[in-house]
Each structure stands twice: as C-alpha cells, then as structure tokens.
C-alpha cells in the first residue's frame, strides 16, 4: 500500500524532470527559505532553531569538564549526535537509535570535526587532568525533507554562539567558545534522474541516492557521504561540487550574521 504512492510519485517526478521542473516549482539548484534563530533555549550553552522550509530542528550545545585521554593529555573533545525521535514524523518509531539517525549524527559530526574549526588544545584546562568536552545534540522536530543540511546548519550555528560556562565549572569567567571556521553542508538528491539541491520530503520519497558535501571556508572538502541505493559518475559529482561551492558560502554567511 505504502509502496504504491512512491511509484506514482516517481512517475510524476520523472515527468517534471523531463521539463526541468520540480514538484514545488523551485529551480534545480534553488533552496527553500531558511530562518535561523540562535540563543533560544534556557540551560543550553549554545542553541539554534532552524526552520528550513517546513523542516524544523533545534540544536543545543552543552559543556562538561572531564579527564583527557591519556594519549592526548591536552586535548578536549567534541561530540555531535542527532536524534530522530518519533516527534519528527509519522514514519519515525520509538526505539534504539536507527541507522538513519546514527548516519545523520556522524555525517554532521565529521563535517564539523574534520574542518578543524575547534582547536582541541584550546579546550585544555589543566593538562592531563581537566579538559572541556563539547556536546552538540540535534533534535529533529519536523522532517519535511533535507534534515541533513538543516541539522548541520543548526549545529555550527549553536556552536559558534556558545558561551563556555566557566563560572559554573569554577574555572574563571564565562567566555564565548572560539570557533575558527564555518563548515556547512550541502546535499543533493537524484530526482527524476538528475540531481537537485535541497530535496523536499516528496522528492526524497520518490527519489534515489543522495550526496552530502561539507565544505569549509576555503572551499575544501571536509566530509563526503553517499546515502541510499544508486550510483553516480565522476562527472555528475563535479557538477554538484561546483554548486555546493557557491551554496555553502551563502549558508556560512547566514551563520556568521548571527554573531553580530
């Protein structure tokens, strides 16, 4: 039953693609509207709410003081996790973290971590004894497509506006966390045979594989991930990588505007 809908939807998407159209009227490389709000939650040391089309996510940053790993006595840590709880949509079920939520969290995590935007040595309080641990938790509240990009945006925005609660930890005065870069993610989904930017939930349902690209300030690649059934050619990748270069800059500007 459930599977009949995608079949019809797939036909419709194929037909639209032939005319280079999308189901909600957008252009192939056009994104939905994005509203970003930071510093919106009591108790979180950094927080962001992203409304991306009809997709809604929250990200929150918490800190902890912990003992460093013996082989890295001066390094703090960063951890990013995402929850796809049943609140996010009809298809989500309670239970242990799904492969989907694990992938989401790990892809966002890698994009931030590998950009090097957090200097792990700057999180040292007393070498070998105390370092800061940063934990970014992402909560998807309404999944209407492209949660990856929304979550990555919320995570970096919450991080860039986070205040280290030094007083609470008895290590001096509160201060803003130092974040040296604004890595952002740009995802593409194959719909009607060709890639489009920022697929909505219908395009995801009737589409194929997707590619997630995270780029840093210099346009360097920090994380790639292909998801779902399907293959792509090197030439296809070249095309979307170029689109991503422009789009990631715009997203970074959106984040950086929050800090002023």
């Amino acid at each position, binding site marked *: 039953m459930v599977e009949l809908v995608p079949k019809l939807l797939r036909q419709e998407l194929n037909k639209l693609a032939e005319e280079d159209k999308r189901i909600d009227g957008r252009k192939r490389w056009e994104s939905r509207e994005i509203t970003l709000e930071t510093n919106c*939650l*009591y*108790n*979180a040391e950094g*927080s962001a709410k992203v409304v991306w089309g*009809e*997709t*809604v996510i*929250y990200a*929150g*940053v*918490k800190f*902890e003081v912990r003992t460093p790993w013996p082989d890295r006595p001066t390094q703090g840590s960063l951890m990013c*996790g995402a*929850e796809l*709880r*049943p*609140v*996010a*949509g*009809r298809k989500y079920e*309670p239970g242990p*973290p799904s492969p989907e939520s694990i992938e989401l969290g790990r892809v966002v995590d890698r994009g931030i971590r590998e950009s090097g935007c957090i200097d792990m040595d700057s999180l040292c309080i007393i070498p070998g004894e105390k370092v800061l641990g940063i*934990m970014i*938790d992402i*909560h998807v*509240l*309404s*999944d*209407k497509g492209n949660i990856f990009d929304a979550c990555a945006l919320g995570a970096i925005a919450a991080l860039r506006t986070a205040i280290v609660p030094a007083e*609470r930890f008895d290590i001096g005065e509160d201060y803003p966390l130092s974040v040296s870069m604004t890595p952002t993610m740009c995802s593409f989904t194959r719909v009607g045979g060709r890639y489009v930017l920022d697929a909505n*939930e219908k395009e995801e349902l009737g589409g194929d594989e997707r590619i997630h690209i995270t780029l840093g300030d210099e346009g360097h690649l920090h994380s790639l991930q292909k998801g779902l059934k399907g293959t792509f050619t090197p030439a296809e990748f070249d095309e979307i990588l170029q689109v991503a270069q422009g789009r990631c800059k715009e997203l970074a500007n959106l984040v950086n505007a929050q800090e002023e």
Partner: protein
Amino acid sequence: MGGYGDVKLLRDDGLRLDGRKIDEMREVEIEAGVLPAADGSAWVKHGLNVAVCAIYGPMEAHPRKIQRQDRAVIDVRYNMAPFSTSDRIRPGFNRRSREISKVTAEALESVVLVERYPRSKIRVEIEILAAEAGTRCVGITAAAVALADAGIPMRDLIVGVASGKVEDTVVLDLDKAEDNYGQADLPMGILPTTGEIAFLQMDGDLSVDEYNTCLQYNMKAAKEIHTIMVDALRRRYESKNGGEK
C-alpha cells in the same frame, strides 16, 4: 523534593525571589500548529520551560497486541532533550520519563473521546527543550492544545498546574530554586470546565490544610492558563481559515 539546606526563598516583603506573589504563576505563552510534519502540534513556554508536542493519528494501532477493540490507545512519550537541563542528560528514556509518560497518557485518556476510534492509536510526542521546574505540567498543557489542533474530540481540555510549599508557605507554580529547596510539590492535571482532576502526583510534606490551599491555587491557575490555551487555538484556527495555508 530537595527539602534541605538553608536557602531563603521568600523575601522580607513577602514576595518570592523572582518578585512573584505567593499565588502568582509564571508567564505562559502558547502557540498551536508549529510543526508542519505533525497532525497537530503546540509550543508552550511557561516561565523558562519550553515544551513542544506533536500529535500523530488516529492511526492503526500496531503491534496488534496493544490494540483495544472498543477504543483508541493514547501512546505518550515525554522526553527531555539532552540540552534541556543544567547538566546534559543522556538521550533515551529513564525511569522518571517512563513514569511521567504513563500517568500523562492515563490523564489524556480521561478526556479524549477514545471510544470514537476503536483499534487505533494516537501518538502524543512531548519534547521538553528547556526545563525550569514543572515540565510534566507544561507537557500536559502542550499535549491538550496539540490534541485540539489535531482535531481530536475531547470532552474538555486539561491544564497542567502545580503548587507547593516553601519555607512552610504554600505557593503557586514553583520555579527552579523553589523546586530544588522547597518542601512539597503538588502537580495536577485539571479539567478547566468541570474542575475534575485527571492527573495527580505529590511528594514532600503537606498537612491536610496545606493540601487544600494548594488545590485552591491550582484551580485558580488552571482557569488562567485555560484562557491562554483557548486564545492560541483561536489564533491557529483563524490563521488556517484566513487562507495563510
């Protein structure tokens, strides 16, 4: 209740640390229809608490063994986001959230016309995004508004309210410090039209007289919050039918 330590919670002028009178509640803001993926939803800010609730259903209840032949089951998940508390909490359910989910579901079953939807399930997803004492009550209020937004028939709304005792004085709507250092807490889920009670918990130490004062404060607060709930639903209705969507 914490109930220990020498923390002063009432000022010399009789007001509370945040300036409220003893029978004054924190500010409450409500918005309905905030989550497009859900069949109904609500956002409630109560003091610094923030709760969001999504409704899915009525839908077929499965696995089969949870089905009831003569009514819908209400499947509540009360969950605190990891960043909602001062110390981060690990994702996933704990004993506290499971208990709250259970008694909240039972309270909602008392007002939803569950016999209209045999063999079905109504999912109620309560997410606490920021916690500043009293989250179970905020969650109940959010759930009632979200159920109404989803168009699910109820014989009344439910309002989540609490009173308690600090420095041997009964006060309405404990905030975080009062909750940590107070002597008793009496959360209730009240049907605003009939004054019936669908949700009741209490811990601490209350004499029978003190209990009665708490009850009276809770009834008063339920009426105030009810007005805000109705207003949110009216705004939502107007926005839907005003062509915005």
